[in-house]
């Protein structure tokens, strides 16, 4: 998958900016605050119809009343135009100039795998960060997953609201709670099954990605830690009514799931150093790219923000070698390209950013 051209209008600190991109590595070089992250965020938002950190309105350039991101994207069998228009009161997504109403019909047209500074918390941060990251990934490759997850979350809100109401009653009638519990269990099972399958799939490619980047003999793996391990999800949830009514919230389910990372049998959450974490996360990102390639027969666009700090120059160059794989497109921000091999620089496109203005260097 290849973004051929991207135009930003009133997005963050960009007033009007068009870039022509190709295959291979694109270095976005600039000082702090120049707008490097903003460019990657624009591509992320175009792919997923929302940002990873802020409300839509924050994406609009100060004093403007809308922001627009447009791109022409080529994939193996078709050429598409995507645009996303964001205003204070809402957003509009267009695919080839036709408005798309359902999120699940929009997401998945432009596959991305991203590493943003926030993602450093993937290993030691909260379970919610990990769930969010992998939910975003699965939503891109599996439309059913996104729909199932959306319905799950909605049913969960209904059930939590009902728990609040019932907890105030001396002798609550649980007929409706039974119904919502069965609905919730149905969707929970589908979400959990897909997450479980995903972890199996990723483990098939994760260790070789780690070896490629770290050049070490340790084995990297990932496990899925579902909040509900019982085989009968409905019966399990029904056995927790008392606890749920006291807490006035649903205590178990995919919204409490987690994932763990290991180097050999060491739990990375407890043991990994900053440098090891970065290597693991970048290995994971390469593995996610490989997995998309297996499923979709096409590589995602890699968005890598400030990946080089805390990574020795050998690993930097190994990562960059990977990004020069045929038909792969990567957009990589950095403050400098000094430590990068001449052979890689020669093949790459280089863009300088200053103050919301990008210029290609030839």
């Amino acid at each position: 998958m290849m973004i051929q051209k991207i135009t930003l209008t009133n997005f963050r600190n960009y007033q009007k900016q068009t870039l022509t991109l190709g295959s291979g590595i694109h270095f976005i070089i600039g000082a702090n605050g120049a707008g490097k992250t903003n460019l990657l965020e624009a591509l992320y938002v175009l792919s997923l119809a929302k940002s990873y950190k802020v409300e839509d309105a924050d994406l609009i350039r100060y004093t403007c009343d809308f922001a627009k991101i447009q791109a022409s994207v080529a994939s193996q069998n078709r050429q598409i135009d995507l645009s996303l228009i964001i205003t204070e009161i809402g957003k509009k997504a267009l695919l080839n100039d036709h408005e798309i109403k359902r999120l699940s019909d929009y997401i998945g047209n432009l596959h991305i795998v991203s590493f943003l500074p926030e993602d450093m918390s993937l290993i030691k941060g909260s379970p919610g960060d990990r769930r969010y990251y992998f939910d975003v990934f699965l939503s891109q490759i599996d439309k059913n997953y996104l729909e199932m997850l959306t319905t799950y979350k909605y049913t969960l809100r209904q059930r939590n609201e009902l728990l609040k109401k019932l907890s105030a009653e001396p002798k609550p009638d649980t007929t409706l709670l039974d119904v919502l519990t069965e609905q919730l269990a149905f969707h929970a099972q589908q979400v959990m099954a897909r997450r479980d399958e995903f972890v199996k799939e990723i483990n098939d490619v994760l260790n070789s990605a780690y070896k490629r980047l770290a050049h070490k003999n340790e084995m990297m793996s990932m496990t899925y830690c579902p909040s509900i391990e019982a085989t009968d999800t409905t019966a399990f949830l029904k056995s927790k009514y008392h606890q749920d009514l006291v807490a006035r919230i649903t205590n178990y389910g995919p919204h409490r799931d987690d994932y763990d990372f290991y180097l050999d049998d060491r739990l990375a959450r407890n043991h990994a150093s900053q440098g090891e974490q970065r290597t693991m996360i970048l290995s994971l990102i390469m593995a996610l790219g490989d997995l998309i390639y297996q499923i979709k027969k096409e590589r995602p666009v890699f968005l890598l923000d400030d990946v080089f700090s805390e990574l020795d120059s050998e690993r930097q160059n190994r990562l960059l070698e990977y990004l020069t794989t045929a038909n792969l497109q990567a957009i990589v921000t950095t403050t400098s390209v000094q430590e990068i091999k001449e052979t890689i620089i020669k093949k790459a496109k280089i863009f300088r950013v200053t103050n919301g203005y990008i210029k290609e260097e030839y």
Partner: protein
Amino acid sequence: MIYPEALEELISEFMKYPGIGRKTAERYALYTVNHFDQEALDRFSQALSAIKSRIGRCRICGHLTETDPCAICQDPNRDKSVIMVVESPKDVFTIEKSNKFRGIYHVLHGALSPLDGLGPDELNLASLWPRIQQSEVKELIIATSATQEGEATAMYIQRVVKNMDLLLTRIGYGVPVGTNLEYADEKTLSKAIENRRSF
């Protein structure tokens, strides 16, 4: 203010309708002034002010009606052994247009949704239970929408009536998931009614 006060007042009345924003309301208000004579306006305002006193809920099925019971409940040619449960009066109008259903209805006026403050007590459910205990009732068709709320409502009713001597069926067939009944066209709807499955 750009518009004279009288027009402004009319505009804000039109804006109370769902889906009508300021621009449309302005167009309606100007159209009213330009194209309606006094006689037409009197008819309009009479129809409007009388609507609540002329229309009420049928005491049997809950449908909106001018007579109580409603024309459907009073019609001797309707099959009183089959009751179809729907979320809204709009659904009754849609199904009646399809001309495929000869039974009678029960209108819930909503679907179970704790987030919207709608529990069993807030819906028109209390009058359903005695209705279906009458011996002439043989089948209950649940035609709530295929949304999370519609499904929850269908499952709830199933729970309550499961031990009664009654054929319980569900339509949803042909109605795409996440679609409210009112968006289903008449053809899919009649197909859905024919293909109802027992539940």
